[in-house]
């Protein structure tokens, strides 16, 4: 069974977040650090320090921001404004369809 860290939202804690267990991702010691600060405050501090992996080598392709977003804390990800623009050339070519009647008028006129 795996447990989720309520601070950094790492989802593979081998033990519940209590009883002085330490999260290998953010380094929170449950029962000690979170006795002094709330989980939100600890998260803010971890993010302000760069959101680095705390102990050993992080899992392959681990990303702290994706972990926070998927864990329900998108507000903790870096504030980035996105603008979407097109790479399409001048203007899309428009193909007009004409009715048989219009074709007839065109031929006659």
């Amino acid at each position, binding site marked *: 069974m795996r447990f989720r860290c309520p601070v950094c939202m790492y989802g593979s804690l081998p033990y519940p977040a209590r009883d002085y267990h330490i999260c290998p991702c953010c380094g929170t010691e449950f029962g000690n650090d979170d006795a002094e600060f709330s989980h939100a405050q600890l998260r803010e501090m971890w993010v302000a320090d760069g959101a680095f992996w705390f102990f050993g080598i992080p899992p392959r392709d681990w990303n702290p921001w994706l972990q926070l977003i998927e864990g329900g804390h998108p507000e903790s990800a870096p*504030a980035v404004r996105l*603008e979407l623009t097109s790479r399409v050339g001048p203007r899309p070519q428009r193909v007009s369809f004409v009715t048989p009647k219009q074709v007839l008028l065109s031929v006659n006129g």
Partner: protein
Amino acid sequence: MPKLLVFAVCEKVLIDENKNISLIVLLQNVSASSPDKSEIPRNAITPKEWTVFAMWQPAAEDYGREFNQIIQILWPDGSEFKKHALTFHFERDKIHHTRMTVIGFPVGQAGKLTLNMWLEADSRPVGESHSYVIQVTHDLAG
């Protein structure tokens, strides 16, 4: 072998009650800037939902076979952001479409964000791999 009819990346896919499909805002160029014009962290992901859409037309021999559609998303430096596999079967005389909603858009690196997609059957690639590229730029001045 299934034939790829559409492979596109967009903000949203709408499907109405008649099963008509609409793709909303194809992603081509994404310009990212931070509010204070500071440098964007190289691993930054912004909380935006986006969708990868594909539409396949089966050949007669494809019915009853199990296919895996693999989608791999690569950061501009070539490292993997996400890889996702979806298993499906074709229904007779029906075109099959797939949608993958991705939560979080990788903006930390300027360059080409590449999506590769291919089919596998019996753990072997079927047909060619297809790519879709989104150009990510960082606007630090404006």
